[in-house]
């Protein structure tokens, strides 16, 4: 697997994006939205396991809150049915409100935790709620040092 990603990096040497990791959905409890909390091997050198798991667990909790069936969701559903579902055109549903909270949370996590480590989380809603896409960016300092060493070697050759 590491060899394959190294090849991908060679192919994309002009871009700063190295690779992407996809966290798949966990269907063990049904069709509710949950993601696997298993720590992917590709992130081993990039981020602490606890931080990653904390992010995924919080996201799972948000989705559970959005899809929770209880008094409030039933009330919303019954009201919608009584109005021939016209209220869906007029007001924001609870699910949409929670999705906005999720979006804010992901942005905050990106700014505070993931971007300093060269990672970027994509909101699952932009991937059809199928995966959490984590983009891994290549080490800029190592690429800068390699480019500087190549310029010094070319200057010395002249």
């Amino acid at each position, binding site marked *: *697997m590491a060899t*394959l990603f190294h*090849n*991908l990096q060679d*192919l*994309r040497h002009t*871009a*700063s*994006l190295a690779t*992407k990791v*996809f966290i798949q959905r966990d*269907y*063990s*409890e*049904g*069709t509710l939205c949950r993601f696997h909390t298993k720590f992917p091997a590709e992130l*081993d*050198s990039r981020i*602490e396991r606890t931080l990653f798991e904390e992010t995924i667990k919080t996201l799972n909790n948000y989705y559970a809150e*959005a*899809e929770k*069936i209880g008094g409030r*969701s*039933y009330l*919303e*559903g*019954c009201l*919608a*049915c009584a109005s*021939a*579902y016209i209220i*869906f055109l007029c007001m924001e*549903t609870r*699910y*949409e409100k929670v999705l906005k909270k999720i979006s804010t949370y992901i*942005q905050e996590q*990106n*700014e505070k935790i993931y*971007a*300093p*480590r*060269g990672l*970027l*989380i*994509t*909101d699952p*809603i*932009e*991937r*059809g*709620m*199928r*995966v959490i*896409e984590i*983009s891994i*960016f290549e*080490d*800029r*300092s*190592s690429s800068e040092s390699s480019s500087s060493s190549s310029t010094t070697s070319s200057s010395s050759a002249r």
Partner: protein
Amino acid sequence: MKNCEYQQIDPRALGTPASTPSSTLPCGKTSSHRPKRKWEVFPGRNRFYCDGRIIVARQCGVLPLTLGLILFTSGLFFVFDCPFLVAHLTVCIPVIAGVLFLFVVITLLQTSFSDPGILPRALPDEAADIERQIDNSGSGTYRPPPRTKEILINGQVVKLKYCFTCKMFRPPRTSHCSLCDNCVERFDHHCPWVGNCVGKRNYRFFYTFIISLSFLTSFIFGCVITHLTLRSQSGRGFIQALQESPASVVELVVCFFSIWSILGLSGFHTYLVASNLTTNEDIKGSWSGKRPAEESGNPYTYNSIFTNCCVVLCGPMPPSLIDRRGYLPPDVIPQTVNSEADLHPFMAKNDTNMCTQSTKELLESVAHSSLVQSTCTPATTKTAPVTQESLLITVSSTLSASGRPPPTGCSGRQARRPTDKACPPRESKHKTSFRLPSPPYSLSHSPLILSDAPDVGFIPLT
């Protein structure tokens, strides 16, 4: 852990995370064209109106007929029967009929014009990642990878199938509608009467539509009978009453013939709602325990009729995943995984181009003749998945039908091809947009089924 100094990446400078990673231009919009909305490049067979607000299937089916019948019959009722009934009985009759009529029309339009729960297709990165996982999970010797994945849901084994069109493993209860060419979550059926798929997001609209239509037709039928009875009592007999009010005869005929099918459909769907099943699952008998030795119950049921009904009809309304009115990032390639060029950067193998071309030649030759050409190489199925769809269809149908390991090499695939009638037309679909009523990989499962009831037409697929 490797100790690296990373230059902090400003997420805002990179633009939205949805933008393609192949471009590192921060917010550099070089395109001078109007930014496109996502619905304009939507890959499925749907039509959009009102700048993406309204979505319908490309074939609207008999939606105009459904709407026309409802409007016509209700119109006749309000114009010809209501005045008599208001005069002789009560003003509540047109009020109730009016409310029911509004419910029917609004829910019909919502069922037809809303997103049923379409899953957006996998982008090239994701598709390549899935391909890598499938390749890695296979053994060292060459064997076409299985395109199913087994998972446990509430302790029960459920098989997830790989969708060749959408390039992903379908989530549970998701099915690919070949009429709309989309994967739809909690796929119930494609209803030609509403001209759209019925799935997770519009099932409650559909159910409300058929229930209110049942009430409306029964109500109109009852009121018309009452009208004619009252008229015949006060007048000169039933035949005379019919002659005085010919519109009532038309309404009687329409209501009489539609009541049976609509009431039947309502009853059927009430049973489905109460047991948290979909039409697709019920028709295929997914949880009815085909093999008595196996314990297979519905893993999604809450084991309570009331809870099932509440969850299905009054549960939280999931959002639309296709974001049809969102704008495309200016540098993203609109086609997701239909072009082979998108997949080449992700394939680090040296023989990618060769294998792709040879597979392409194979497909073209098969598409143009019924004879099998022997141009495939063993390495084809390991590479570009979009062009090996037809080859893998036969392999996967062999796998699911017989459970034996598929024959290796070309000869096995060639031997199978003449018997798999749908494959050549399916391949030519990529060339000539030929459409099949059902995808060929459903041949090993239940065939296309149309209901016996004349007025009820639903097409459960895959």
